């Protein structure tokens, strides 16, 4: 079986100060569109027109991607909490009391009360 060694890039290849490519700038725009739908507390308040370098783009991309995930996670926890609350309420309500005889109408109940006063 052949084993092929794969060289690594030289040290110094990392360059976050590199001008951001059109691809990265487009990704920033796409994330900005998605960010507009997030609740205010999740928004970055970053001015995307000021993004110039790869490092600046990377920072924004991470912040908004994690915000999207967090917002969905919060909603998921909220749905779970609502369902759990409903389940607990159903468990603690206890059995319903069975009524004897027929239920009198309000009119009849008031008529009886009137006679008693008289």
């Amino acid at each position: 079986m052949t084993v092929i060694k794969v060289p690594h890039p030289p040290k110094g290849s990392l360059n976050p100060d590199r001008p951001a490519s059109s691809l990265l700038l487009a990704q920033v725009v796409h994330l900005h569109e998605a960010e507009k739908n997030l609740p205010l507390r999740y928004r970055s308040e970053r001015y995307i027109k000021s993004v110039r370098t790869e490092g600046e783009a990377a920072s924004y991309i991470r912040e908004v991607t994690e915000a999207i995930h967090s917002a969905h996670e919060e909603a998921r926890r909220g749905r779970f909490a609502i369902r759990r609350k409903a389940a607990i309420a159903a468990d603690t309500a206890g059995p319903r009391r069975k009524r004897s005889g027929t239920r009198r109408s309000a009119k009849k109940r008031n008529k009886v009360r009137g006679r008693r006063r008289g």
Partner: protein
Amino acid sequence: MPLGPGLANLQHIVVLMLENRSFDHMLGSLGIVNANIDGVSTGLSNPDTNGTLVQPQPNAQYQSQLQPDPDHHFPAVDLQIFGGNTSVGRQANMQGFVKSFFNQQQDVGRSHMIMYYFAQNQLPVLTTLALEFALFNRWFASIPGPTVCNRAFAHYGTSFGRVDMNPLEILAPFKSVYERLIGANPAHTAKIYYYDTTSSTLEVVNLLQNQPELFATYEQFLQDCASGNLPEYSFVEPNYNDHQADSGEQIASDQHPDHNVQAGELFIASVYNAIKQNPDLWASTALLVTYDEHGGIYDHVVPPSCTPDQFTASANDTGTGMPFAFDRLGVRLPAILVSPWIPKGTIVNRVFDHASIPATATKFFLGNYSPRSPREINADVFIEPRVDPVDPDRNLLSLTTMRTDCPDFET
């Protein structure tokens, strides 16, 4: 012909899509190694702005050469393919690459670099995979334009009439391949693995925003491969930017100019190793390695026409003054299918584009599925559906005994 163990055992399809490199640029050197590979040959050239014919040369460098990033938006690609001819009934001649690169810096000498390609020994991972497994001689970008639209064809089978880089509006009734698989009855499994949250995904506005549960990190991909929990369909995205992480420096691995190409080689090797190091996974997985579009870099093969999509881009949208009916493909790209069931040195000459990706995954896992775009319906598949009998001329996973001589990459 009976199904055979390759197809019968297949449970996972993995797609790794890198960025912005053409076939000749990355694999053109292999034409000398194997005459059946349609690579660089003598007689190929492009005129520069002085009329001098510039030939392809094996002078490509890993970094710092293709600056600025060669233009790969629709109007520039039109120039590259048609050589500047805008007349009615024009013929493609692949003669406009040098002129297009000149337009960006007005530097004649620099414009010649768009014709450079890598020598075989510079790309040990990609060239080894190309020679060891199935190499596609005719895999093209879905449209002669940029990243977002081409990747849309890989996810949805269409770009919904778009040829630019703006956020896509997904139009009913077409669903992503992930939604089709997960929403099926019985449900299948699918995931998009992005490198990390700092790199994120290029499918933001629709899938990340609305279905973040589809996504996981590359670290998770490695764990899923090791534990045998890989989904049936996986789409892997490389690292799109240089950044620092808790684990150290993360060099971009997408090979988009001007990112270091060696970093992309390491990433391809990492994906391959992750699958191969789990013997059960290796025996039941097919890995497609390809690129989203050519990045403005030279290739000599004229893109063919194709079934028009049901959308049209207006003359204003294309930026060329001519509408586009999605009836011709983009520039040729490297594309390799990896599996231990593929005979060594397989060359595929059928025509494919990125619509073949959802077409293949959908047909393999779901069979007949509707609705799909006209482009996807007519796209060829690179893995035959698991239906007896299978056409032996089309089945790439054709070996009756699994190979034990597949290479290992030491990273």
